[in-house]
């Protein structure tokens, strides 16, 4: 069995601060994976290392057999946790940017979803609410037909109704040759759509497990399992 994403003993520090310490992780195709950890625990750093937007201190990363870097980016659709375009640009600019930049971009699919969410391409990006801008970026990302989707905090500013629509859209567009990794701490929303979960704790890989196995073995929901794993004992003692 070959893996779509292989991270081997990956470490990263910023100055003296170690953010990721010896992370080894392998993901197969045909999975929806949740990357969940408390805020500031290195989720975005991990994703940026896969994209090679940050440089590894140690270890190696391959995506579909290609070392992390510009070549590997071709098989990754990345949704950053912040704005991708200058707000003065029109939405149509963002769409044609994607069309030019990515040969795997499906414009028809993109237009269909823009219509679903009533996003008018003649308007500027800054005219969108924060939540709608997030939806726009998600649509652009999911309109690529590629192997690995890295989606960083897709739901943060979106209202509950649109959250549900986004989840449905991710499910509908998910294809078995690809893997989707979603970083989020909104566990209730993604609980039932995940195959596997990856948790980072104290800079290390804390667990990589099937969500159904967690339910079976612990009798807990993912949300409870997460909280119990990370809850600090405020009244003394370590954990």
């Amino acid at each position, binding site marked *: 069995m070959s893996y779509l994403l292989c991270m081997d003993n990956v470490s990263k520090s910023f100055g003296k601060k170690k953010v990721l310490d010896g992370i080894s992780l392998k993901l197969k195709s045909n*999975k*929806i994976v949740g990357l969940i950890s408390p805020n500031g625990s290195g989720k975005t750093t991990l994703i940026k290392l896969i994209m090679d937007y940050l440089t590894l201190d140690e270890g190696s990363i391959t995506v579909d057999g290609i070392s992390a870097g510009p070549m590997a980016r071709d098989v990754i659709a990345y949704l950053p946790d912040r704005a991708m375009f200058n707000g003065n640009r029109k939405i149509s600019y963002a769409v044609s940017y994607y069309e030019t930049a990515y040969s795997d971009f499906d414009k028809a699919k993109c237009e269909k979803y823009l219509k679903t969410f009533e996003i008018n391409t003649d308007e500027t990006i800054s005219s969108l609410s924060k939540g709608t801008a997030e939806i726009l970026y998600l649509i652009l990302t999911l309109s690529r037909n590629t192997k690995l989707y890295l989606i960083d905090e897709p739901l943060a500013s979106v209202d509950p109704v649109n959250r549900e629509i986004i989840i449905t859209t991710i499910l509908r567009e*998910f294809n078995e040759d690809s893997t989707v990794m979603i970083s989020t701490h909104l566990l209730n929303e993604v609980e*039932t*759509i995940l*195959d596997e979960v990856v948790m980072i704790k104290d800079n290390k890989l804390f667990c990589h497990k099937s969500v159904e196995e967690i339910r*079976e073995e612990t*009798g807990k*929901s993912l949300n409870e399992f997460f909280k119990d794993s990370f809850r600090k004992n405020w009244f003394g003692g370590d954990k």
Partner: protein
Amino acid sequence: MSWDFDETRPIFQQIVEMITRDIVSGKYKAGDKLPSVREFAVTAGVNPNTMQKALSALEESGLIVTQRNSGRTVTDNTKLIGKMRKEAALDAAKKYLEITRAVGLSADEAIEVIKEADKL
């Protein structure tokens, strides 16, 4: 609208229970064509692999059959559906008896209560 799950139990098991219930209750009738895995997963709001696993389990139990060309259908074996209906009713009855015993009723008294409740 997605289905309502208890997230502390494996989702695939609950899907099996829900679809079984829909078949024995006649919402899906014998021989009915079923949605594809993808459609089912989107409606339920669950991972497609989980849905696939649930449908495979239902195939194993015989309630669902895969036709070579026309996808999945509910079995046309009405005997099997009847048997499953009986099993579902037995499960419910056992749970009911547990409760009525706990409040001090005998099985016969519990049956009388059901008859009474049916008239309300």
